């Protein structure tokens, strides 16, 4: 088996997939801690459906660079959803559900009415559950994903103290003179970036798994915010590595194999560390 793995690692596309996969899951796990603790777990799910809808529109419009449409639309939806939750007439979870299923329905409708290839069912399936696209990344894709991931990670490290403050108690952060709205806006935009990046990796239905599972697993094991953050990112990297390698070895779909690895890691942490109260 190791020999077989060694052979695969000779291929640049396998190494690219591992690099991009690890970076993306690292980003999602870092901000996943905040989302889970702020009770926004479902926003990731909602946004990924928005991204799916935006991608359908981009496909139908035959845009050369789909990112240019998907990223801003998803970011706008993220800002809208996080804002809504603070003072909305429609409660946060209902707004998320509405936007989420709405975007999904319209996305599929568009793809079905204006097919761009003969195999619509295959297209839709691979957008929803991830395709082999992580294994067919172009050099530019790899560069873009890497650069964005690095920016996200650097921003997280620099704003760590502020992110902690708004996650634990936004009102207090405000009274202490911090510009909490700016950090919340930053978090919203970054979540959108992560989701758009992660669509390549696991597909839009499974993205929230990358965001919530490492955080929940880490909360079973550690009691300090710092440790939860560190453990969460380690677990995310390990499960993604295992998932991608396993999918290469056994020819399983990349996205669902990674998520399956996350679930197994969570089960292990839960048994080892006890309850997670969330």
């Amino acid at each position, binding site marked *: 088996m190791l020999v077989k793995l060694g052979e695969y690692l000779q291929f640049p596309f396998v190494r690219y997939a591992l690099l991009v996969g690890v970076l993306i899951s690292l980003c999602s796990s870092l901000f996943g801690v905040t989302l889970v*603790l702020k009770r926004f777990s479902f926003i990731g799910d909602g946004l990924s459906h928005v991204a799916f809808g935006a991608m359908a529109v981009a496909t139908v419009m035959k845009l050369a660079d789909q990112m240019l449409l998907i990223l801003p639309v998803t970011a706008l939806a993220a800002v809208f959803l996080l804002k809504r939750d603070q003072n909305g007439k429609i409660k946060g979870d209902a707004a998320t559900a509405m936007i989420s299923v709405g975007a999904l329905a319209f996305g599929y409708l568009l793809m079905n009415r204006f097919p761009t290839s003969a195999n619509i069912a295959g297209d839709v399936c691979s957008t929803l559950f991830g395709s082999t696209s992580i294994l067919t990344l172009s050099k530019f894709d790899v560069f873009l994903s890497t650069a964005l991931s690095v920016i996200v990670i650097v921003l997280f490290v620099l704003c760590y103290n502020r992110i902690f403050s708004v996650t634990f108690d936004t009102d*207090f952060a405000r*009274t202490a003179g911090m510009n909490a709205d700016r950090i919340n806006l930053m978090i919203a935009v970054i979540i959108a970036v992560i989701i758009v990046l992660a669509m390549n990796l696991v597909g839009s239905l499974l993205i929230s798994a990358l965001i919530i599972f490492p955080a929940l697993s880490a909360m079973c094991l550690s009691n300090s915010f710092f440790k939860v953050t560190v453990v969460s990112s380690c677990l995310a990297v390990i499960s993604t590595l295992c998932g991608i390698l396993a999918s290469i070895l056994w020819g399983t779909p990349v996205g669902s194999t990674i998520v399956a690895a996350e679930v197994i890691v969570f089960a292990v942490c839960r048994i080892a560390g006890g309850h997670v109260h969330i």
Partner: protein
Amino acid sequence: MALITVENLCLGYDGRAVVNGLSFQVEEGSYVCVVGENGSGKTTLMRTLLGLQQPLSGTITFDSSVASGEIGYLPQQSFIQREFPATVREIVLSGCIGKLGKRFFYSSREKQTAEDCMRRAEIEHLAERSYKELSRGQQQRVLMARALCAAGRVLVLDEPTAGLDPVFTEELYGLIEKLNKEGMTIIMVSHDLEAAMKYATHILHIGDTLFYGSRDEYLERSEGRFLLVQKESGACL
């Protein structure tokens, strides 16, 4: 000059006034208890004083010596997540967030402030413990230490003893009294009239009748002699 001057304040939400025509001044070093029935607008008043909410009308003026973000705030415990995975030290240190300015990380001076505040709240032995493992009373002290980190001279407390058992309640009142004696101005919302009478120097009563004055004046108020402001019906909007 008074530390905080409130003039003709009208409070409420969704354009509906809860409190009308409220005026009072808080002097440095005083211990103000805000009392009133449920729903009379006590928490709304706190949030407005802290700038979390805009008043419908009226003004709140802080003495120029009170910089923004120098007010320590102890929120109602129900607003805080009790299961949050963080150590006591992490939470107390987050009280210094306003002092970061344009920097990204805490300096050793802020870390020292956090240690001092933990000592003042008598929780330094809990520094490495996880917040969620603590009792309600200990959690309240942690939030108190965090508020102290931010507090220059004013501490605003919203129902600090709600849900605490009598022993912790007494301890917490003792701590607040100690801080007040050290010169901290205290503004506390409370249900506990007995404690308000025992510790406060001034009472602010909001509800159908508005009253602000010293504790002794409040005690004589039953005769109606010191009713300062009468609620005007819907005068605000």
